């Protein structure tokens, strides 16, 4: 389980997270909703270990381990997966090669046997098929020349391959049409189970029609101001953040 206590963080001296307390028990999917600038993306980056954020207080533990002390790749090997809001392009890096390198790096770190090229291809094709994606995806360079929707699908493909125990989805729904949204959601729902938890960060309630959360938290100005069941998302949609957070 993921436990966040009193987490504060700043960028270039500006405080963004002002004391976050949150627990995501094993097997649950939690949604974090909030307006632009509330600190949603900062939270996802701090959890995945991106540089440039000063953590000024609080703690984050992941299955009892001190998450903040771990390198990004260690977090990934420990089962944490971040689906990026803006996946970066990697010119010159083939997607298949990238996916296999990443998968094997994680397996190596966990002391598992590496997957050979043939086995990987088989696994990748299987996942692609499930996600209704073409094999072409593997031949291209990572995210280079991908449309917004294709980039997000590539994130979901990676998630399916890595099979993480915790997935953080950072506004994965932004810029997606209904079909893409459905594919992304199916990818997450396929992983759903007693050993998988997820933190779904979103601005809109729309995504939560497809990925139904166990809990919903409202993030405003660096703090969680309200928590509730899935009906909270509908309330937010109907009333807006101003009203709902004041309630």
């Amino acid at each position, binding site marked *: 389980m993921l436990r966040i206590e009193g987490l504060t963080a700043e960028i270039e001296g500006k405080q963004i997270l002002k004391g976050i307390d949150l627990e995501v028990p094993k097997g649950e999917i939690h949604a974090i909703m909030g307006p632009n600038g509330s600190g949603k993306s900062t939270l996802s980056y701090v959890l995945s270990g991106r540089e440039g954020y000063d953590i000024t207080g609080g703690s984050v533990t992941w299955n009892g381990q001190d998450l903040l002390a771990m390198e990004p*790749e260690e977090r*990934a090997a420990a089962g944490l997966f971040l689906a*990026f809001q803006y996946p*970066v392009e990697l010119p*010159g*890096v083939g997607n298949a090669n990238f996916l296999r*390198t990443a998968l094997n*790096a994680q397996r190596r770190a966990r002391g598992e046997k590496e997957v050979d090229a043939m086995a990987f291809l088989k696994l990748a094709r299987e996942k692609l098929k499930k996600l209704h994606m073409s094999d072409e995806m593997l031949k291209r360079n990572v995210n280079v020349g991908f449309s917004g929707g294709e980039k997000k699908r590539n994130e979901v493909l990676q998630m399916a391959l890595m099979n993480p125990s915790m997935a953080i989805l950072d506004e994965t729904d932004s810029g997606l049409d209904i079909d893409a949204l459905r594919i992304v959601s199916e990818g997450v729902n396929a992983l759903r189970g007693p050993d998988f938890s997820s933190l779904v960060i979103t601005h809109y309630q729309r995504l939560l029609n497809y990925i139904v959360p166990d809990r919903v938290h409202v993030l405003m100005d660096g703090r969680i101001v309200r928590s509730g069941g899935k009906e909270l998302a509908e309330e937010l949609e109907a009333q807006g953040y101003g009203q709902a957070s004041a309630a």
Partner: protein
Amino acid sequence: MNAVTAGAGGFISRFEGLRDRLPGAELEQVRALREEGAATLREKGLPGRRVEEWRYTDLAPVAQAQFTEALTAVGEAPALPAPRAPHRVVFLDGRLAEHLSQLPPHAAPLSARLEAAQDLLAADHGMPLVGLNAMMFEDGLFLDLPEGRDAGTIEVLNIAAHAERPIAFHPRHVIRLAPGAQLTLVETSTGPAGATYLHNPVYDIRVAEGATFTHVRVQREGRSAFQLSTIRARVAAGGTYDNFTLNAGGRLVRNEIHVTLEGPKAAAHMNGAQLVADGQHADTTTFLDHAAPDCPSRQTVKTVLAGKSRGVFQGKILVRQVAQRTDGYQMNQALLLSEEAEIDAKPQLEIYADDVRCSHGATVGALDPEQLFYLRARGIPAEEARAILVQAFLTEAVEGVTDPIAQAALEEAVSGWWEREAA
């Protein structure tokens, strides 16, 4: 006399002692070429940094090294790697070693064919290093492909064998493709790690109508060596000169290429990669002369710098008034992996024709932290992630090389560079 001119002085006095014994001494035209080279060198010395074309590359260490030419051929041949192609030409200290080579048809040591080749030896046009070569060259490859001949892939090994004292060799390579001929030349230059030597090759290349010359050069000289090479290629209508140069070895290396597109639809590709590690200086300087209409030219040069090193790219594209409908593209990119590395770039467009599409771009930077984080967030450790990104950076420059023998030679030079030099 300043230090640089003094450096040329040694070469000139040796020439004065040797001039009657050098190959071609009986040929008036060759003698004149050598004297002209000597005159250029006397007048200009080894170029100093006050010369605009040499502002980023200092030849003082060449002047200081007091090089001498090896007057006799080396006795023992070093162990050779397994051949990659059916035809292989081996040079030892700039001399064609026939007993170690499998010469292809239409190829010969230049020293034996000077009378036939002399008309193809271009003047130095005031370039001191070409002058030095003209003055002192003893041998080289003479390859004269007849019309329509497809010579396939030929491997060339340039091996520096001497290690006892600083030696210099100045091979002259003359390569002519008649109309429609095709050739791929894969050249590798190597030498002993600790040996100080100067490899100063000059290439006179003619590509006739519709001929295609793919020229891949892999420079892996010893780490105390100097290589100063000058290629001059003239390409006729519909012909293609396709050069790829990898600069990976040497202490101080300058790879200078001049291509003149002389007929309509002649094409030039001048791609390259420079892997520059601690203590190295690598300079790629190119000059592309669009002297005819409807010619395309493409150039991508990538430089990766580690340790205390310096990389230089100078690339000039001249579009003459007749060269209407020129399509020129040039990109040079540098990746800095160390706080002590320096990159200097001077891309240059000089355009006198209006109906043209010419562009150049240059970028300089470190590895992108966003890309690095993305890889690490997928579980790839930092060092491995950096190696992947460096490899990816080089891929774009290398991917134009399609000949499998060339690919293998490049792969051998590039693989493991990261682990050895930068990690």
